[in-house]
């Protein structure tokens, strides 16, 4: 096939899949906000903005706060990883990767059990009785859940900064700190920008955390959820989504792209930039504090899975784990298959989009990014409702497993795409031309250049999408059926029943599976990028 032919086919694939799995279900939700018992009505929009102005402001100020907090922590941790001593580096990366796997509600519960109003550490150990319920609690818990992903993204970007540029600055007499501030960090901006957007969007769409620790503080996403599930008011709940999604989309569409016009390395070289010890101690302290908290939280989950009843009877038991392995293996396997399909499909789709990107005008490029952002921006429940609204109107029935996989793929497309774009922005464009000049078609650009060179970024996309798909409940709670159950929903049920043992057993198994699959993917990718370097 000709170059243009292959590119055309790839375009068609992207356009059809975005329309089918994003535009159609999402517009179904928006259309629902104009329907009242099947008739056109604007009832839901009467005074919508004035009545909810407080919620809109709260939602956006929370998202902004979460972004700032997450970003400062991420940059500090990334500095520690890149410039700190190599000792303990793999432990830190492990803790960061672990913290991206957060089983629904279980982590929030573990945080409360440790640092809550009557937490093990805050109350029992230090005798502090503080109130985590409110803006500050939501802020901290959302940031804690996001830092893993954003710090890894920032670190990957910082790692890709060409160290010869740092050397030039040092040789010209620039101090190490000046070199960091004026050369290294600005060059890593694509990754930092991507991390910021991921945090901002994630926080806007999160309804679980405000429901759990918000207390009186609620945001649009959580209020929309209650309007839908509690009051059953479809038009109003869907209209609240419009109120959330439109301003956010406008912001995302208009924002200026981080400049990424320089810098490539691909081959990491030894760094000669040495930051002063007193300066490094700050990122070092923050990083180890974060690692310590993660060890406590995940340690509690693992211990909970082998303890009779945490807090009451601490004797060891295997009953929680045995209960799952004996009766719930089908859910685990279905989760695994759907999540693998979602994560691999997402990586591949983002690589294809990134491959097509350079050849098209800026507004269209931004349009595609914005469409990909929508499912990530919507509270998950509503994406699920959209899938249900759209696909149950088909004359034939789609399998629940397929819909679950697709909803996870397209919900997590935005972070995968952002990660891939951040990688692309730091890649030398002449490489792509070189492959073309040597007669390679788009597929060889994809296979021989993009996939290997973007692999650290795609790997992050994979890690995020896979663990999100394994642990999500929002979008799929309306897609699972009595015939097609998945592990995260089982976990959610256990949490609702107050069965911390069963919940943490399922959570532990999910964590182990996600970690194992990622370890495997890590090795596969390392082998393939090693092959690239050798050739």
């Amino acid at each position, binding site marked *: 096939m000709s170059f243009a032919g292959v590119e055309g086919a790839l375009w068609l694939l992207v356009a059809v899949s975005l329309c089918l799995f994003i535009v159609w279900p999402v517009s179904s939700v928006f259309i629902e906000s104009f329907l009242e018992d099947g008739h056109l009505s604007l009832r839901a929009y009467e005074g919508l903005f004035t009545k909810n102005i407080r919620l809109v402001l709260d939602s956006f100020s929370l998202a902004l706060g979460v972004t700032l907090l997450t970003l400062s922590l991420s940059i500090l941790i990334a500095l520690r990883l890149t410039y700190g001593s190599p000792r303990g580096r793999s432990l830190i990366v492990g803790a960061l990767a672990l913290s991206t796997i957060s089983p629904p509600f279980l982590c929030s519960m573990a945080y*409360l*059990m440790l640092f*809550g*109003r*009557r937490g093990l550490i805050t*109350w029992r150990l230090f005798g502090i009785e503080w109130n985590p*319920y409110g803006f500050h609690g939501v802020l901290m818990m959302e940031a804690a859940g996001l830092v893993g992903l954003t710090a890894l993204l920032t670190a990957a970007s910082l790692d890709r900064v060409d160290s010869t540029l740092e050397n030039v600055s040092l040789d010209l007499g620039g101090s190490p700190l000046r070199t960091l501030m004026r050369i290294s960090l600005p060059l890593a901006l694509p990754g930092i920008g991507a991390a910021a957007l991921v945090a901002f969007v994630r926080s806007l769409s999160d309804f679980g955390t405000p*429901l759990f620790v*918000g*207390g*009186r503080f*609620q945001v649009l996403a959580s209020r929309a*959820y*209650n309007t*839908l*599930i*509690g*009051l*059953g008011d*479809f038009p109003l709940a869907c209209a609240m989504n419009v109120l959330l999604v439109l301003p956010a989309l406008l912001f995302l569409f208009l924002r200026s792209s981080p400049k990424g016009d320089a810098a490539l390395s691909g081959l990491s070289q030894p760094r000669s930039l040495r930051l002063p010890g007193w300066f490094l101690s700050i990122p070092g302290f923050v990083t180890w504090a974060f690692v310590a908290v993660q060890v406590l939280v995940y340690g509690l989950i693992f211990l909970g899975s082998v303890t009779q*009843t945490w*807090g*009451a*009877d601490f004797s060891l038991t295997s009953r929680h784990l045995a209960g799952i392995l004996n009766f719930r293996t089908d859910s685990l396997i*279905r989760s695994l*298959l*759907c999540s*693998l*399909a979602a994560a*691999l*499909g997402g*990586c*591949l789709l983002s690589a294809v989009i990134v491959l097509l990107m350079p050849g098209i005008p800026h507004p269209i490029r931004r349009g595609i990014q914005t469409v990909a952002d929508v499912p990530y921006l919507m509270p998950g429940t509503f994406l699920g*409702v959209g899938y*249900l*609204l759209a696909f*149950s*109107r088909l004359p034939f029935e789609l*399998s629940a*497993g*397929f819909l*679950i*996989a697709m909803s996870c793929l397209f919900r997590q497309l935005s972070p995968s795409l952002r990660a891939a774009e951040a990688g692309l922005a730091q890649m030398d464009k002449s490489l792509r031309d070189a492959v073309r000049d040597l007669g390679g078609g788009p597929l060889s650009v994809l*296979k021989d250049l993009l996939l290997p060179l973007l692999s650290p970024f795609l790997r992050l996309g994979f890690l995020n999408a896979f663990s999100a798909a394994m642990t999500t409940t929002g979008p799929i*709670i*309306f897609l*699972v*059926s*009595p*015939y*097609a*159950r998945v592990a995260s*929903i089982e976990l959610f*049920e256990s*949490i*609702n*029943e*107050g*069965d911390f*043992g069963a919940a943490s057993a399922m959570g532990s198994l999910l964590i182990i599976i996600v970690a194992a699959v990622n370890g495997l993917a890590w090795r596969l990718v390392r082998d393939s990028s090693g092959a690239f370097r050798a050739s």
Partner: protein
Amino acid sequence: MFRKLIAAVLLCACFAGGALGAEKSVSIYIAYTGIKPILEAFTHDTGIKVDYLEMSSGEVLTRIRAAGKAQADAWFGGGLDSYVAAAAGGFLEPYVSPERAAYDKMFFNAEGLWSGISLGSVVLMGNKEVMAKKGLAMPQSWEDLAKPEYKDEVLMATPLVSGTFYAMVSGILQTLGAEKGWKLLEAIDANVPYYSKRGAEPANKVSMGEAAVAVAPFDTVQRLQQEGYKVEMTFPKDGVPWYIAPVAVFKGAQNPEGARALVDWVLSEKGQATLGKYNTQAPVRPGVKLAPAVQAMRDSNLMRMDVVKAGQDREATLKVWQEKFGSK
């Protein structure tokens, strides 16, 4: 290429996985504790296999509204208000089981759209350790719960999402009358730091010690005690609110015979005895032997309230509730 291949294989596997479950069995949405052994007994007695999914009744209702149909055969347990709404939306299939002759009429919808299977109640649950540390006594009544010493230590869920808490609000209003009832609710509200947005949360958080007292369903407290949590329970002296858990057949069921067999079985003497064995709500069929703890609940001073009237008043009551306490 290799990866694409894997993705394609996995997608196919997902399709196949979905198709595998197509053998004839009854599919059920469930919000009922202890359900696993109950359904095993059903399969044992009738030979009918079941597939079930546990889901709150608000979520079930949202789901069938969005899809325009129920993607299951039967509905078991959960809040009566959701059943009433589903019946109004035309999603339920009437079925008058022959077993109904043995029952009090107050537990049924006359047209057979839903049938009550067991009675649950709303009680007070305290965390012993927190109570002791804070020097608090276990509240014995709704009046007690309104005392200032429990400030910020009372958790309950918003009745907008939880049928249990709607039963409490409705029960208090029905027995005390609107004026005194709202006054009491306002006094209790002063002690509630915020209303939980999910029904199961107050009891769970109090079992973790996040607050001293929860308003909680009786069967949840029983389960937490069996799990070993150090929690204690009182039946409020000024009246125990109650509600019933229903069962129903969905319109357009793939296996309507199976769904009707489930309704017959759960209303039969044997089915009711099985419910009594694995669940701590009280089966409503007269003459079913109850466990001592459940018998004590049945004998507690249940409020004189009308569950059907509670359902009819729901919208108006919640409107007032939201005006008074909605911002919490």
